[in-house]
């Protein structure tokens, strides 16, 4: 019955099949093969990535929970912990954007409340093909509606994120969702099954045939037949999840619970085996007790279904009635489907007859681990070669042309305001949102304390394509810098590593390099990784996305009312640049938008300088010495300054130094204005506070200088005394504010 075709359909290699037979001491039946195939899929087993992920730093005095549980957690004082994680839902979102994105939100929320934390915020990191390319608008609109539909309904604010556009994502958009919650540190609950004889409960939506082999789907490339995989995408029900959330949090207040896990990828299979494995126990269930939405479902289908909004609980014997009563209150039915055993086996029965029997170990700890071959792509040499002299622009700079270039960059969809998008997300529910979307990192106050949490997700995938190691370092540094700009000290990070097919040595090289870079940046900035997710096989028709290691960083502000945003606060403040620019244009937004090329090497990054800069800005915010802070990254200093003016109704008059990166002044000006040198922050301060700001910077070893003043209605930037940019703020704001919105409103009209 199990032949080569069946194995191929399950994504199981002949070698792997041989190992399965070894573990069982016999041939598996089809149900067992299905269980192995999902647990050993890339998505669940991390078989290609594990050897690299092991090298990431995961420890620190603040870490309450590192990788390996449903989510990570860091101590935020007052006996509380911030529980957070990021996850991808790329493949489902490409096939069915609304439901794919919605269920991505649902999945990550379950990971957070499963830990005993009440979710308080969501972020997302989205990537699409060029906005004007066919199909992109439909995808973007669907994904945004799906995120909104789920998050708004369940009542968790979406407080920030990033959205970027690049042709490399045309056939493979990325939808990464981050969720954060708050738990009493002493009440954190884990996904363990222990205590022989303790009952195993199933709660939530009924099981249907949806999502069967979703995990396997996420472990293969796409081609023109991918639309046929639509039945493997699940449908979300945020109301059901809201009931589950409230009921589970209520059950967690009792002493009745041993462990709990959501049924996400690989559904019932993954939750039973992982809980058993963590608790060093076995789990025995009878699938005939599992509530079913359809008739005639086989054990194979029930075990592999990825129907949404389901939880698995291990309850203390004797507390059954208490647990059942709470779920009853929320109109949910908790059904006993089995119990914890001592023999370390996953045993699946159907009306009493054993239909699958597998050692838990074989499915989890003993799952295959590959050290796949890596090879630096030969094409990288060419990509890294950037000849600025060859850029087709005039030699003599003139203000009108430079103004136009700035307007062009401000209107590029990756840079432009995302208001049309975040306005669709309820970003204020729960009344904690201190810094609104579009104003910098998301900042949420922690009720019952003076503190707030700041959070940001970032990645510049052009950098990662040109140098995955350095690019990943930038991703962590930028996310942490954004959090620091809000005034918060970074505490921990979560990552979502989106890459192509790991079986290709060039992709695996990118992956290995990126993890190495990420690890070194985490160590240098003392920010441990507390969990995350890997999404491989992001390829369509053999074309991979840029390597995209998205990093989410969470930081703590002891005083919520000292949080900073990007906007200038009013006129007559001094504008201070912390850090130095060197005119680095490699991989820049300028090159991509103005010249249509992704070339060169990313800006250099000195992690010691970065650390000093971040410590400085956190101290300045805490001492209330600065009134706004904005990270200088995509689009360089000119874009950062413009963004400081936008929504503020105040202009800026700025003088900066020139840089020399080429023989032509136009290119040198571009370097000064649009170069993306790292470790820079634009702050504004009352004139009377400037001496203190500069003294602090000197003490911290961070270069700092007053580059101008706020005020008036114009954005004027002079380079070495010569005016380079001179625009009405309103004129500069127009393309930035309307680039995305206009493309959609025109469609409706």
């Amino acid at each position, binding site marked *: 019955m199990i032949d080569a075709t069946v194995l191929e359909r399950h994504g199981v290699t002949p070698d792997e099949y041989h190992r399965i037979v070894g573990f069982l001491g016999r041939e598996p039946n089809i149900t067992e093969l299905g269980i192995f195939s999902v647990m050993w899929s890339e998505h669940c087993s991390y078989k290609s990535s594990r050897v690299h992920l092991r090298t990431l730093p995961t420890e620190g005095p603040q870490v309450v929970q590192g990788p390996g549980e449903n989510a990570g957690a860091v101590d935020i004082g007052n006996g509380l912990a911030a529980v957070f994680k990021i996850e991808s839902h790329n493949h489902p979102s490409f096939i069915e954007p609304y439901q794919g994105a919605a269920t991505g939100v649902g999945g990550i929320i379950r990971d957070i409340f499963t830990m005993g934390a009440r979710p308080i915020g969501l972020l997302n990191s989205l990537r699409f093909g060029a906005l004007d390319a066919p199909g992109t608008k439909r995808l973007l609109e669907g994904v945004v*509606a799906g995120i*909104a539909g789920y998050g*708004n*309904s*369940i*009542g968790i604010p979406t407080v920030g994120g990033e959205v970027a556009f690049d042709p490399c994502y045309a056939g493979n958009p990325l939808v990464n969702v981050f969720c954060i919650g708050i738990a009493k540190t002493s009440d954190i609950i884990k996904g363990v099954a222990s205590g022989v004889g303790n009952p195993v409960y199933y709660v939530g939506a009924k099981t249907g045939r949806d999502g069967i082999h979703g995990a396997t789907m996420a472990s293969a490339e796409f081609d023109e037949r991918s639309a046929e995989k639509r039945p493997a995408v699940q449908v979300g*029900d*945020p*109301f*059901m999840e*809201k*009931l589950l959330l*409230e009921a589970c949090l209520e059950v967690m207040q009792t002493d009745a619970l041993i462990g709990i896990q959501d049924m996400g990828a690989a559904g019932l299979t993954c939750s039973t085996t992982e809980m058993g494995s963590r608790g060093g126990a076995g789990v025995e269930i009878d699938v005939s007790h599992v509530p079913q939405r359809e008739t005639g479902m086989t054990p194979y289908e029930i075990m592999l279904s990825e129907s949404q909004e389901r939880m698995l609980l291990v309850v203390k014997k004797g507390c059954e009635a208490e647990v059942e009563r709470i779920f009853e*209150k*929320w*109109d949910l039915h908790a059904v006993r489907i089995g119990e914890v055993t001592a023999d370390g086996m996953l045993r699946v029965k159907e009306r009493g007859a054993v239909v699958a029997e597998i050692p838990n170990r074989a499915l989890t700890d003993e799952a295959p681990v590959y050290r796949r071959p890596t090879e630096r792509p030969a094409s990288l040499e060419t990509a890294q070669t950037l000849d600025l002299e060859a850029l087709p622009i005039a030699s003599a700079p003139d203000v009108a042309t430079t103004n136009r270039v700035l307007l062009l960059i401000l209107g590029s969809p990756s840079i432009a305001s995302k208001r049309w998008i*975040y*306005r*669709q*997300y*309820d*970003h*204020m*529910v*729960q*009344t*904690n*949102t*201190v810094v*609104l979307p579009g104003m910098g990192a998301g900042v949420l*106050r922690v*009720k019952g304390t003076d503190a707030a949490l700041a959070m940001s997700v970032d990645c510049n995938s052009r950098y990662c394509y040109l140098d995955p190691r350095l690019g990943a370092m930038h991703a962590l540094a930028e996310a942490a810098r954004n959090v620091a700009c809000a005034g918060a000290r970074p505490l921990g990070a979560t990552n979502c590593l989106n890459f192509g097919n790991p079986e290709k040595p060039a992709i695996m090289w990118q992956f290995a390099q990126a993890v190495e870079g990420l690890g070194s940046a985490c160590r240098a900035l003392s920010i441990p990784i507390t969990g995350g997710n890997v999404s491989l096989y992001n390829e369509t028709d053999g074309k991979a996305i840029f390597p995209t290691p998205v990093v989410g960083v969470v930081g703590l502000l002891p005083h*919520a*009312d000292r949080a900073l945003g990007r906007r200038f606060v009013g006129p007559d403040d001094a504008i201070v640049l912390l850090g130095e620019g060197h005119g680095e244009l490699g991989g820049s937004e300028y090159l991509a938008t103005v010249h249509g090329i992704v070339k060169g090497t990313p800006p250099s990054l000195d992690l010691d300088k970065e650390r000093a800069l971040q410590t400085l800005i956190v101290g300045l915010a805490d001492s209330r010495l600065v009134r706004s802070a904005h990270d200088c990254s995509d689009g360089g200093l000119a874009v950062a300054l413009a963004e400081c003016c936008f929504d503020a109704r105040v202009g800026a008059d700025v003088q900066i130094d020139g840089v020399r990166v080429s023989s032509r002044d136009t290119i040198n000006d571009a370097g000064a204005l649009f170069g993306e040198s790292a470790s820079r922050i634009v702050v504004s301060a009352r004139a009377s506070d400037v001496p203190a700001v500069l003294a602090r910077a000197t003490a911290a070893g961070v270069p700092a200088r007053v580059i101008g003043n706020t005020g008036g209605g114009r954005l004027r930037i002079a380079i070495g005394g010569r005016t380079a940019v001179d625009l009405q703020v309103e004129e500069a704001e127009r393309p930035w504010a309307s680039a995305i919105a206009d493309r959609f409103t025109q469609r*409706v009209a």
Partner: protein
Amino acid sequence: MTFGVVVFPGSNCDHDAYHAATQVLGERAELVWHKDTSLHDADVVILPGGFAHGDYLRTGAMARFSPIMPAIKAFADRGGPVLGICNGFQILLESGLLPGAMLRNRELKYRCEHLYIRVEQTDTPFSRRAQAGQVLRIPIGHGEGNYYADADVLSRLESNRQVVFRYCSPSGQVDDAANPNGSVHNVAGICNQRRNVVGMMPHPERACERLLGGTDGLVILQSVVDAVAAGANPADVATTSSTASTSPTR
């Protein structure tokens, strides 16, 4: 005094209203489960925002069958102050405590942002502390806030002065540019004829603390604290001041 905040299973602004009442106003508040049949000793009832029963059918369409609803109707019939916010407003419409209906937003998208509303009437328990014509900056967050009533109902609403809040520009101009969802006559909130039941789409509980960007919502919640403290049946005040325009209803 005690705020009774009704909790439907899909309510998601229940805790926000509770927080505003207890932590910001310093009053007592109780969460009232929708399966209860008594409001206990609530002096004012808040129907909070959210998606009461998932609202896959029509917003608020199922909530009117919740066991708590008869108690709320009786409370309102006695003249007790009731405020429906967002989904709470939708529920008041579906249960017939307020006239009219909600359509999807004109642009068919959920919309969350700070907006401006103008106080049109100050003789309701939720606006008595405001000045007539006062402009409040208060956030909205809804996909179905496009208030609709037919011409008859609308003219009755206007002649009875039942439109309490209208969307407006920052300077108080009521025009289409300031209308976020297509509501008729820029309606952001209305009251019943007795003036003790108010429904509004904007979220006053989200605008009660400086830390969150504004305190313009406080005037709405403080109004009802005053009304209850004044002891007078809020409906009495209303009847005397609006006698002239009172007309028979269906």
